[in-house]
């Protein structure tokens, strides 16, 4: 099978799993994990198109993936700090019970 199509299918599967996790789980931490999985699926697409594209010497895909990893790290840190702050306030991390933002 075509290696590029295989990579794209793996990436689509990863995105679907992440989307299912973000949409179905009650725990806010796992919603964040699902978002991370979707970001990783996009990164895999970048790497695959860089590797099998016509100009692998341009390195644009790898650079974009590195910047995306940095952004994802910052997003995970801020998201987990928010979850901790909300948990300390509301004593729960269940996204279907956190219904108000006003203290």
């Amino acid at each position, binding site marked *: 099978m075509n290696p590029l199509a295989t990579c794209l299918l793996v990436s689509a599967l990863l995105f679907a799993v992440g989307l299912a996790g973000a949409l179905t789980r009650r725990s806010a931490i796992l919603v964040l994990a699902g978002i*991370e999985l979707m970001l990783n699926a996009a990164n895999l697409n970048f790497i695959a198109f*860089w590797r099998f594209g016509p100009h692998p010497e341009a390195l644009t895909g790898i650079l974009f993936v590195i910047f995306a990893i940095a952004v994802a790290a910052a997003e995970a840190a801020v998201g987990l700090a928010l979850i901790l702050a909300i948990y300390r306030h509301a004593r729960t991390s269940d996204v279907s019970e956190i219904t108000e933002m006003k203290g």
Partner: protein
Amino acid sequence: MTLRRLVHCALALTVAFAGLAALYLNLGAEFAGLAQLLVYVGAIAILIVFAILLTRGDDTAESVFSPSGLAGAILAAAVFAVLAWAVETSGIVHPAAIPAAPPEPMRSIGLILMHRYILPLEVIALMLTAAMIGAVILALREKRPQPEQIQRSSAQ
């Protein structure tokens, strides 16, 4: 994503990230693969495990899935079907010869990062610093009024 315990979910997530890093290495992107291994397996997995441990205590929910969970799963399956259909019908032709990866990707990544992408590098460094400061402030925010409460209760 269907496991019941949060810690098992975190472990599966770590394994998925490690497998993705191996896939990057297999595709010839050494720098991105190693960065993935360091950042995700090394840092984000630990962060998630710590967050799970810090927010535990009321895991007595009757169901781990949200009330609209079935609709979400169906939507995700539909998205995967559309993506797979798009990949299959996009007419990707098998390249006659897979282009070889550049011989020295590390060196050229360093050079291009310091020459052409110097402004995004600085911007992302600033953003990481701001995000770390913001995360620390968010995680520490509710500890401040406690001494006043203690003084007030002792005064009463």
